[in-house]
C-alpha cells in the first residue's frame, strides 16, 4: 500500500514541476481492486459486525427488528468503506460525517439560478443531461452540488469502492454461512 502511495506522490511531484498550478492528487481506482485492500476492509468489517452483534444481543433481543439490524450492518459496512478511502474523496468524508448530508432534505424554494453571460457555458448543457447529473449527484453521498467533472471523479471512485464492498461482503457471508452449519431457509445453495 505504501508503495503505491509513493508512486502517486512522485508522479504528482513531477506534474507539479512541469506545470505550475495547484492540483489535488487524483485517487487511483486500482487500489479498490487489490486483494490487500479487500482483505483489510474485510477484517475491519468483521470487527464492526462483531460490535453490531454484541450491541444487538444485549439490547432488546426480539424487538430489534431485522430491518434495524440490517441497517446497522449496512451503516457499519459503509463507514468501514469510507474509512478505507482515507479521506481523499468527498463521498467518504460525507459518510464519515454521519450521513446527514444524504438523508437530509435541503429546503430549496424554486432553486435560484443566476442566468447571465457567466453561466452561458453551463447552460449549453441540455436540461435532460443536467437532470440526470443531478440524480447521479443525489445517489453519491455528499455530491449534490458538485460540478460535473468533479462529480464524475467521485462517481468512478464510489463505484469502484462499492464493487469492492460487494465482493468483500459476499466473501464474509459465504464464510459465515459455511461455518454456521444449518443452511438458512431463505437461501438455497444457489449461484453466488
Amino acid at each position, binding site marked *: 500500500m505504501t508503495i503505491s502511495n509513493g508512486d502517486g506522490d512522485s508522479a504528482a511531484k513531477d506534474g507539479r514541476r512541469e506545470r505550475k498550478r495547484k492540483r489535488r492528487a487524483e485517487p487511483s481506482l486500482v487500489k479498490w481492486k487489490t486483494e490487500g485492500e479487500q482483505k483489510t476492509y474485510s477484517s475491519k468489517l468483521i470487527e464492526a459486525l462483531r460490535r453490531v452483534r454484541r450491541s444487538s444481543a444485549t439490547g432488546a433481543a426480539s424487538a430489534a427488528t431485522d430491518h434495524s439490524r*440490517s441497517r446497522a450492518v449496512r451503516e457499519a459496512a459503509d463507514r468501514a468503506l469510507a474509512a478505507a478511502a482515507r479521506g481523499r474523496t468527498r463521498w467518504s468524508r460525507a459518510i464519515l460525517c454521519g450521513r446527514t448530508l444524504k438523508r437530509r432534505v435541503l429546503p430549496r424554494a424554486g432553486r435560484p439560478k443566476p442566468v447571465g453571460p457567466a453561466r452561458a457555458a453551463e447552460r449549453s448543457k441540455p436540461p435532460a443531461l443536467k437532470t440526470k447529473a443531478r440524480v447521479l449527484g443525489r445517489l453519491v453521498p455528499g455530491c449534490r452540488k458538485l460540478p460535473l467533472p468533479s462529480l464524475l471523479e467521485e462517481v468512478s471512485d464510489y463505484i*469502484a469502492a462499492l464493487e469492492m464492498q460487494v465482493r468483500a461482503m459476499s466473501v464474509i457471508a459465504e464464510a459465515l454461512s459455511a461455518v454456521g452449519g444449518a443452511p438458512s431457509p431463505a437461501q438455497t445453495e444457489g449461484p453466488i
Partner: protein
Amino acid sequence: MSSRRSRSRQSSSGRITDQQIDDLMSKLQSLLHEARLGSHDRASAAKVLQDTCSYIRSLHREVDDLSERLSELLDAAGVSSDQAACIRSLFM
C-alpha cells in the same frame, strides 16, 4: 495519466467545455462498465449517466441484500464461529 493532462487543459483555459466533459465522462464510465456494456460505442452522454445511475442503484441494492443476509447470519452464528469465519475469510 492522460486524464490528468486533460484536466490541466480545463483548468488553464478556465472554462470547461462540453467536449471535455464528454471526453472525461466516456473515459471514466468506459473504465467502469467494460465488463457490462461490451465494446460498442457509447456516444450519448445521457445514456452513460443513466446507466451509471442504474448501476449505482443496483450496487446499493446488492449491498442492502448482503447486509440483510449478514444480519441474519450474525444472529445465528455463535462466538467461536465468528472467529473461525474471520480466520477463514482472511485466508480467502
